């Protein structure tokens, strides 16, 4: 599956999908790859953490339990603020999206591992799911009234021919902007690190200090980006859901 010609030291090599074992499902190739492995690890880490952290179910939480509770409260508050009290129906879904992206981003920070969220197809699939679910909820809740979302109130009739197409385009572009934001951030950061690591390898000893120093600082920044992008992705999910559930602009 590896693209021909890419050396094992190129900055893009880290994004290669490598087969671990072959798997066929009907006519489709569903081989277990390094990406699949990271997803399974993320699933195991999240489930293991959430179950292990809550094993005591104590009223006075242990450290690890308060971390799990903090994550819960953080997303629960986000959902409540954006969607209102009734929005808690969607809470497990929003929480799963957040924790999955967060853990995949952070696992990608381990040297030699693989960043699943640096693949546009993965981020696009999640963003498309969000968009489809939000649109479906919108039509189920409001029927054809959901189309009023594209006709903002208080806009002069004369401007409608301009506003409505803009609203439509911005609505349909949502899954793309939503997914590209995460994918591009993850890919750019990791590529940048690899490029500078390449400089550090190629430069003589006295020249290594600059790229290595930069990498140390940039790795810290990458951790921030990994957390921030998971957060932004989740906030946007809540905002899109809010449009569908409450139709507030």
């Amino acid at each position, binding site marked *: *599956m*590896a693209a*021909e*010609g*890419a*050396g094992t*030291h*190129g*900055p*893009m090599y880290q*994004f*290669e*999908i490598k087969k671990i074992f072959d798997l066929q*499902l009907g006519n*489709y*190739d*569903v*081989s*277990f*790859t390094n*990406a*699949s492995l990271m*997803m399974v690890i*993320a*699933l195991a880490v*999240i*489930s293991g953490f*959430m*179950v292990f952290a*809550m094993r005591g*179910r*104590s*009223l006075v*939480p242990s450290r690890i339990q308060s971390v*799990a*509770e903090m994550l*819960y*409260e953080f997303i629960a508050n986000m959902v409540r603020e954006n969607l209102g009290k009734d929005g808690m129906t969607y*809470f*497990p*879904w929003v*929480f*799963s999206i957040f*924790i*999955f992206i967060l853990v995949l981003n952070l696992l990608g920070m381990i040297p030699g591992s693989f960043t*699943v969220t*640096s*693949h*546009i*197809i*993965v981020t696009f699939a*999640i963003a498309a799911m969000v968009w489809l679910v939000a649109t479906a909820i919108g039509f189920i809740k409001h029927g054809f009234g959901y189309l009023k979302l594209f006709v903002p109130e208080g806009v002069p009739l004369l401007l409608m021919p301009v506003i409505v197409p803009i609203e439509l385009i911005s609505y349909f572009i949502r899954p793309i902007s939503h997914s590209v934001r995460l*994918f591009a951030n993850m890919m750019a950061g990791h590529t940048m690190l690899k*490029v500078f690591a*390449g*400089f550090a390898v*190629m*430069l*003589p000893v006295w*020249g290594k200090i600059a790229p290595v120093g930069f990498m140390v600082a940039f790795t810290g920044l990458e951790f921030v980006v990994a957390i921030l992008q998971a957060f932004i992705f989740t906030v946007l999910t809540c905002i899109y859901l809010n449009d569908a559930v409450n139709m507030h602009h």
Partner: protein
Amino acid sequence: MFASITMLAEAAGEAAQHAASGGLPQLNPDTFVPQLFWLVLTFVTLLFVMSKIALPRVGEVIEERAERIQRDIDAAGRLKSDTDKALADYEKALADARANASGIAKQTREKLASETEAEKGRAEATITAKLAEAEARIAATKTKALTAVNDIAAETAQAVVSKLVGQDVSLDDVRKVLQPVAVK
């Protein structure tokens, strides 16, 4: 300095060449299906585990804690109202006792005053009685004295008259004569 810049440029060039030669691995459509398959599989499993097992547990614990805190706050409120009530009772009892005490004091004062009054009345009555008795005695003495004066006057008059007339005059006669004078 110049050497390092050239080396950086060379390194960048090489890196770019690597990238260009391979193309983006992200855009290789052969990898899409297996990635999507495993994404769906893991995400659906995760969603199931989170919504059915993990999150309800967290929610339960947080809710239980909130309930417990609410219960404790309620209990504290109840205890406080109990304390307030006990305090009010105590103050009421204190006020009652105070009123009672002042009532008793007033009663005692009134009783003492009335006793004093009675004693005074009795003393006055005794004094009045004694006064009356003394007055009566004085009056008696005065009468007696006056009677004695009359007798003396009568005897004297008898003696004088007897001497003057040369015959005995009875005392009664003298008295009869003197009577109007004495009365005057």
